[in-house]
């Protein structure tokens, strides 16, 4: 087992360490033949969560696999020995940092739109369907989490606004990039129609995506919304 860990460790050093939040904290030159765990903390801090050998082993095997990005970003539900649910290994590794914390506040503020009645725009605007609202917010949350899991930063939270036809706009207006994703029902299906560019029309992206999963091309572009 220690040989296997050593092999994976060398691989990880060249591939994953750039985004591995703990890599600089560990002595990667340790002689692993004499140890049953991956490295050891150079300076143990109260802020650093100690990772049990079994958890490290699990993570390293997963990170060494050639798995699809989507699989990597999605949760690997499992239970620790203490019975605590771990929905995502990056979350576990990042001292419990919550990438959706800011966005959840925006969602709470945007819930006012669920109380809008027909004609809220002074004319014939449709009310906002709560299912559409929930699915759209969940979809954006998934993308925010996916970016976080991929690059270990949290993109800016969008503003959430109702549109007169009953659809919902998620808008980013940043200095370096802008994007609008409009969620609406299309033939009883919820689709997100998006447009984005890096201002001045550079690297534009547009199209539509269903809300069922995170699509890599959109998630990669959304990394510009830093």
């Amino acid at each position, binding site marked *: 087992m220690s040989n296997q860990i050593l092999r994976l460790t060398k691989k990880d050093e060249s591939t994953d360490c750039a985004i591995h939040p703990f890599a600089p904290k560990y002595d990667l030159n340790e002689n692993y033949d004499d140890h049953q765990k991956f490295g050891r903390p150079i300076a143990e801090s109260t802020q650093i969560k100690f990772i049990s050998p079994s958890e490290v082993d699990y993570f390293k095997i997963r990170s060494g696999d050639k798995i699809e990005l989507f699989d990597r970003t999605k949760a690997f539900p499992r239970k620790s020995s203490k019975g605590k649910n771990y929905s995502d290994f990056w979350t576990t590794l990042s001292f419990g940092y919550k990438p959706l914390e800011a966005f959840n506040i925006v969602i709470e503020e945007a819930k006012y739109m669920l109380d809008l009645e027909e004609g809220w725009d002074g004319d014939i605007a449709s009310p906002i369907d709560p299912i559409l609202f929930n699915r759209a917010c969940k979809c954006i949350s998934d993308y925010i989490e996916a970016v976080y899991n991929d690059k270990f930063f949290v993109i800016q939270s969008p503003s959430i606004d109702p549109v007169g036809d009953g659809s919902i706009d998620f808008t980013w207006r940043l200095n370096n990039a802008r994007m609008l994703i409009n969620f609406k029902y299309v033939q009883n299906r919820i689709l997100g129609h998006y*447009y984005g560019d890096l201002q001045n029309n550079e690297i534009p992206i547009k199209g539509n995506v269903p809300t069922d999963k995170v699509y890599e091309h959109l998630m990669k572009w959304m990394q510009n919304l830093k």
Partner: protein
Amino acid sequence: MDAESEVTTLILNGDFTNNCNLYRNYHKQFIRDGMVNAGAFAFEGGMSVDWDKYTSPDECIIRVGLTYKTGKTDFKNHSDFELLSLNVKDIKMIEGVSSINFTPIPKNQEEIGKPYNVSHSDVWFVDPELRLKFTYIANKIEVNREYIDKKVDEIKRRNEAIASAKKID
């Protein structure tokens, strides 16, 4: 503002020069944190605007107050509406805008709840997501609320008097 090259495929049905401005009214619900959001440029088979060559900002809001809500016989509350200005040159630079059409509503077609509007125009664009770009070129226009309120009341009273006179006849 976009530094895009001017789109040559844009069709102008009207003598719209680069100095012209198009006024777009929108409900206060579309303001968040002091900024107008993309919902204010909703695509309803063309985006209705008023050409500044034939109207003033105050007149735009007055017309809102004299217009019935769609499919109803009660007037829009003009106090809830604000006004934006879109420069024609800026619109031309937005890739995806297909045409700007001068589509006036003549006086002989005027009726209560549907005022005539010699400045009415439409902006056509392909992708609804272009609404996002409009938020970058839009400038808020201040109007004289006191004058507008007075004028709307005056015209409504006059229209009611005319309608009553017609009934008596």
